[in-house]
C-alpha cells in the first residue's frame, strides 16, 4: 500500500471515530450540565468543600470562583514544584529554578503546558502525578465550565444566573473527563505506555553501551494530557517518546482523544441552545478549518519529502510523515501542544501552517471549552459584520448583540494578537533574549513568534530550538499564558452575564440564519481575515520569507 493511500485511510478512520463519538458524547455533555440531580460521590465532594450545589451564581460570582480556584491551584502547584526535591521519590531529579517553577505552575493551571524544563530531570514522579496530572484534569474542567456557562446564558431568558461553578467543575471532572481518561489510560497501557514507579535503572545494552531506562506513572497522565487538550509531556520528547506513544495505534488514539471533546462540544452547544442545526454549523466551521490545516501541513511535509532528507528530521519511523503531520495539525488546532514530532524541523510551509493554526485563536476546533467559546466569539463578530452590511441590529440566537456585547467580543479578539506581537517584537529588540535563539534569519523570527503564539493561545507546543529556560522567557511567556487564558475567560463570563439578562428576540424574515452553509462560509472568512490582517506582516517575515528563499 502506498503512503498516500495509507495516510488517507488513517485520516478517514480518525474522522469516522470522531463522527461516531460526536453524537453521543455531545448529548452526554449537554445532559451532564442540565441534570437536576447530583450523584452520590458529587454530594460527598460538595459536603467536604462546603458549597451549596443547588444555588446558582451570577456572572461575577461565577468569575470569582473561577479565579479563586485557579489562584489556589497556581499557588499549590508552585509550592509543590519548589518543594519537590525535598519530597519522597526524588529519583535524581535536579528540581527547578524559581522562574522555571513560576512558568511551569502558570503553564499547567492555564491549560497551556508550555514546558521550559525537560520532564526527565526537571520533575519528580510526585509532582508529575499529584500536581500536573491533577491540573490536566481541572484546567480542562474550568474551560468546560466557562463554555457551558456561556451556552446557558444564550439559552436562558431574562435571568440573572448562569450556573454554579463548583457544580460544573465537579461534574466535568467526575462524569466526563475521569471516565473517558480512565478508559483511554487502560487502552494506552495495553498498547505499551508505561505505568510504574521504578527508579531510573541503568542497563547494559546488547552491544555493551549503557542506557538509562526511566519509569513513571505515564499512562494515567498521557490519557488526560490529550483528552484535556493539555499537552505537557511526561518526558522531554513528549508524544514522540516511545514510552508515551509506542505505536501507530496509540498514536491514532491520542489524536482522537485530543479532538473528541472540542468537536463534541459543538453538538452540546446545539442541544443547549435548543437548535441542533447551530451545532452542525459550528462543527462544520471547526471541521473545515481543521481539515484545511491537516491538508496543508500534510501536503507541505510530503512535498518536502521529495528532498533527500525526506522531511523525516524530528519524526519517528513508526509514524512516518502522514501520521506526524496529522498529529501536528490536530495538536496546534486544539491548543493541546503535545507533539509526536519536532515542529521546528518541519518545512517552512508546514511549520507556518502550524503557527497559523494557533494565531487563528485556537478555534479549529480549539481546546476543551476554550475552543467552543472562541468559536462563539467569532460567530458574534460574523453577525456583527453582516449586520453592518444590511444596516440591521445584529442578533445571534435571539439575543441582541449590542455595543456592550460587541465590546466584550472585540476585546477578546484583541488580547491574543497584542500579546503575541508585542512580546515577539520586544524579544527581538533586546540583545539578551535574541541570543537564545537556535536559528537565525526568518526561521529565528518564526521560532520566537511561535513561542509567544503558543503561550498566549494556551497551546504549549514549541519550536523547541529556542532556549526558553531563562528568566526573560519564563516570565514573559508566563505573563502571556496567564493573560491569554484568564482575560478572555472573564470577558466571556461578562458576555454571559449580559446575554442571560436579555429576553429572546423572536426570529423574523429579516433575521440572518446562523445554521446555513452561507453562515459557515462567513464565519470562516471572518476568522481567516481577522488573523490574516493581524499577522500577515509577521508571517511574511517569518515562514513565508523562509519558504521563498
Amino acid at each position: 500500500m502506498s503512503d498516500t493511500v495509507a495516510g488517507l485511510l488513517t485520516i478517514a478512520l480518525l474522522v469516522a471515530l470522531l463522527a461516531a463519538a460526536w453524537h453521543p458524547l455531545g448529548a452526554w455533555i449537554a445532559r451532564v450540565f442540565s441534570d437536576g440531580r447530583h450523584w452520590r460521590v458529587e454530594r460527598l465532594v460538595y459536603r467536604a468543600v462546603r458549597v451549596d450545589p443547588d444555588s446558582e451564581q451570577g456572572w461575577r460570582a461565577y468569575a470569582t470562583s473561577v479565579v479563586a480556584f485557579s489562584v489556589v491551584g497556581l499557588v499549590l502547584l508552585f509550592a509543590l514544584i519548589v518543594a519537590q526535591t525535598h519530597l519522597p521519590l526524588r529519583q535524581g531529579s535536579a528540581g527547578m529554578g524559581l522562574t522555571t517553577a513560576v512558568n511551569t505552575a502558570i503553564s499547567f493551571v492555564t491549560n497551556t503546558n508550555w514546558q521550559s524544563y525537560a520532564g526527565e530531570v526537571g520533575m519528580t514522579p510526585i509532582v508529575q502525578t499529584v500536581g500536573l496530572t491533577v491540573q490536566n484534569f481541572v484546567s480542562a474542567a474550568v474551560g468546560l465550565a466557562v463554555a457551558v456557562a456561556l451556552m446557558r446564558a444564550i439559552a436562558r431568558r431574562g435571568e440573572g444566573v448562569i450556573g454554579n461553578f463548583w457544580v460544573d467543575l465537579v461534574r466535568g471532572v467526575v462524569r466526563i473527563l475521569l471516565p473517558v481518561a480512565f478508559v483511554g489510560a487502560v487502552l494506552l497501557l495495553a498498547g505499551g505506555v508505561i505505568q510504574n514507579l521504578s527508579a531510573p535503572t541503568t542497563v547494559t545494552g546488547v552491544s555493551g553501551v549503557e542506557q538509562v531506562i526511566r519509569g513513571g506513572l505515564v499512562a494515567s497522565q498521557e490519557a488526560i494530557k490529550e483528552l484535556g487538550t493539555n499537552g505537557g509531556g511526561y518526558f522531554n520528547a513528549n508524544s514522540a517518546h516511545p514510552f508515551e506513544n509506542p505505536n501507530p495505534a496509540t498514536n491514532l488514539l491520542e489524536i482522537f482523544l485530543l479532538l473528541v471533546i472540542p468537536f463534541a462540544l459543538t453538538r452540546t452547544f446545539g442541544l443547549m441552545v435548543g437548535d441542533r442545526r447551530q451545532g452542525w454549523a459550528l462543527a462544520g466551521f471547526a471541521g473545515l478549518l481543521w481539515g484545511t490545516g491537516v491538508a496543508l501541513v500534510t501536503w507541505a511535509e510530503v512535498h518536502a519529502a521529495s528532498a533527500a532528507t525526506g522531511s523525516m528530521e524530528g519524526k519517528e519511523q513508526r509514524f512516518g510523515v502522514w501520521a506526524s503531520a496529522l498529529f501536528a495539525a490536530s495538536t496546534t488546532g486544539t491548543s493541546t501542544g503535545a507533539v509526536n514530532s519536532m515542529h521546528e524541523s518541519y518545512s517552512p510551509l508546514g511549520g507556518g501552517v502550524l503557527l497559523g493554526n494557533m494565531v487563528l485563536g485556537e478555534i479549529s476546533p480549539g481546546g476543551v471549552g476554550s475552543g467552543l467559546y472562541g468559536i462563539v466569539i467569532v460567530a458574534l463578530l460574523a453577525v456583527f459584520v453582516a449586520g453592518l452590511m444590511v444596516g440591521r441590529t445584529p442578533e445571534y440566537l435571539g439575543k441582541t448583540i449590542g455595543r456592550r456585547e460587541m465590546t466584550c467580543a472585540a476585546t477578546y479578539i484583541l488580547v491574543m494578537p497584542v500579546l503575541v506581537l508585542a512580546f515577539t517584537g520586544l524579544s527581538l529588540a533586546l540583545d539578551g533574549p535574541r541570543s537564545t535563539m537556535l536559528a537565525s534569519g526568518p526561521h529565528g523570527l518564526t521560532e520566537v513568534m511561535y513561542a509567544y503564539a503558543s503561550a498566549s493561545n494556551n497551546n504549549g507546543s514549541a519550536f523547541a530550538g529556542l532556549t526558553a529556560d531563562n528568566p526573560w522567557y519564563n516570565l514573559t511567556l508566563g505573563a502571556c499564558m496567564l493573560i491569554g487564558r484568564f482575560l478572555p475567560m472573564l470577558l466571556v463570563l461578562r458576555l454571559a452575564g449580559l446575554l442571560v439578562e436579555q429576553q429572546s428576540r423572536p426570529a423574523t424574515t429579516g433575521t440572518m440564519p446562523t445554521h446555513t452553509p452561507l453562515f459557515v462560509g462567513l464565519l470562516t472568512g471572518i476568522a481567516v481575515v481577522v488573523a490574516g490582517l493581524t499577522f500577515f506582516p509577521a508571517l511574511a517575515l517569518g515562514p513565508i520569507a523562509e519558504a521563498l528563499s
Partner: protein
Amino acid sequence: MASRNTSSTSRQLVAALRMMLVLTGLLGVVYPAAVWVVGRVGFDDQARGSLVRRDGVVVGSSLLGQNFTGERWFTGRPSASNYSGDTSGGSNLAASSPDQRKAVRERADGYDAAYGTNAPADALTASGSGLDPQISVANARAQAPRVARANGLTEQAVRRLVDEHTQGRTLGFLGEPRVTVLELNLALERMTR
C-alpha cells in the same frame, strides 16, 4: 437567589482550597493508582516498559532504541541525544539550517561509503525522540550485507532475518513499515552463538 453563601472572595478562596485538595486526592492519587492496578493485573509487561532480557538480564526495552557500536550490529537512526534515556528529544534543526545541511551531507557520504547505496530518509535524519527503536525496511536491507560479512553469515540468511523482523503497517494502513533494531540484533546474536 444569586449565591448568598458563595459570593465573598475570601469564602470562595477557602472553598477553592478545599476543592483543590479533594480533587487532588481523587485525580492525583486514586486515579493513577487505579490505572497502576490495572497495569499490574492485566498488562504487567507493558506497564514495566516492555523490557527485553538476555539470559535473564535486562538489556533494554523493545520500545527504546539504543546505541549499537561495532560492525556486527544493525544500527538505528541518528539520534540528537545519542540514545540517552535521560535527555529525549530531537535536533530541532530546520532543513534550511547550515548545521542540518552539513549533518545530512556527512551522513549521506558515510552511508554511501559503507553500503554503496543512497541512504533512505530515516538514515539521514535524527528522530523526534532520540530514542526511535526502529528503522525503515530499506535501511535494514542495505545494512544486511555488511552485517552478514562481520558475523560470518550468508547475506541470504541475514536478509531472511530482516524479513522475519519486518513489521507491516498496523491494520494494514496505520503507521509505517519498520524493523525494530534491538529485536533484530538479538535474533542475529542467537543465530551466531
